[in-house]
């Protein structure tokens, strides 16, 4: 194989590896939107991984762990069902009494492969 061809192929393989790395990274970082019905606002994951939002009844504490799992840590709701749900990934978490909806966004969906 000629030297020029080899350099060209190695460059392309490097670009491929970088592209795959970014793809892999984006696949592993699940995105969530936190909708607060009382405020009619949407929040996203903060860098501190801890979000405090005020709903119908009071403040809810939402936290993310290193595995990109989200949970409602504290809630003023009477039954505490949302807190008992624990950490979840890629499924919605809803606290009806406090009006908090935590939805995984579909940013990683690929229309060509359907994955």
């Amino acid at each position, binding site marked *: 194989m000629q030297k020029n061809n080899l350099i060209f192929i190695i460059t*392309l393989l490097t670009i491929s590896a970088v*592209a795959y790395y970014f*793809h892999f990274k*984006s696949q592993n970082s699940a995105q969530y939107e936190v909708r607060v019905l009382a405020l009619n606002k949407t929040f996203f994951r903060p860098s501190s991984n801890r979000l405090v939002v005020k709903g119908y009844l009071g403040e809810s504490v939402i936290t993310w762990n290193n595995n990109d799992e989200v949970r409602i840590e504290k809630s003023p709701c009477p039954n505490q069902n949302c807190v008992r749900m624990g950490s979840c990934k890629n499924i919605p978490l809803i606290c009806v009494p406090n009006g908090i909806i935590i939805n995984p966004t579909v940013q990683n969906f690929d229309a060509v492969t359907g994955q």
Partner: protein
Amino acid sequence: MLKKYTTLAMLVASAAALQIIESPLPRFLPWLKPGLANALSLYALVKLSAAGGVIVAIFRTFLASLLLGTLFSPVFIMSFVGALSSALLMGLLYKAFSKVTNEILSISGALINNLSQLAVIQIMFAENINFMFHIAIMIWVSIPSGYIVAKIVNELLRRTADA
């Protein structure tokens, strides 16, 4: 001049035939195919001129789509844009770099062909495409397919050196 036109016509017919033969082959992804028809665009580019490569790319997509019954359908648009962008890029590289090899031309052509087809899909049908994933896969597919096409062209050029 007549010889040049005859050669071009034969290349267009052969490229269209190769495209028709390739079309029923199963594809795992919409842009994934061997791209043998591109060999004749590259051959026309090297043997005749950069314009020859573009002419073969344009006419072979029209002819193949007409015979396949997909003329002016989305499949034709994907095929046309891919073939045209590939021929234009190969022509540009051929003119710009004197030491460029057929392998580099062919792999670049295969890659830009796939990329432009994906861009057409994005514009026409789907907004949500994971480009990083497709680029990574495309490069892995384009290298062997482009390399094989370049070897075919090298062999064709060797056999027709004094023609």
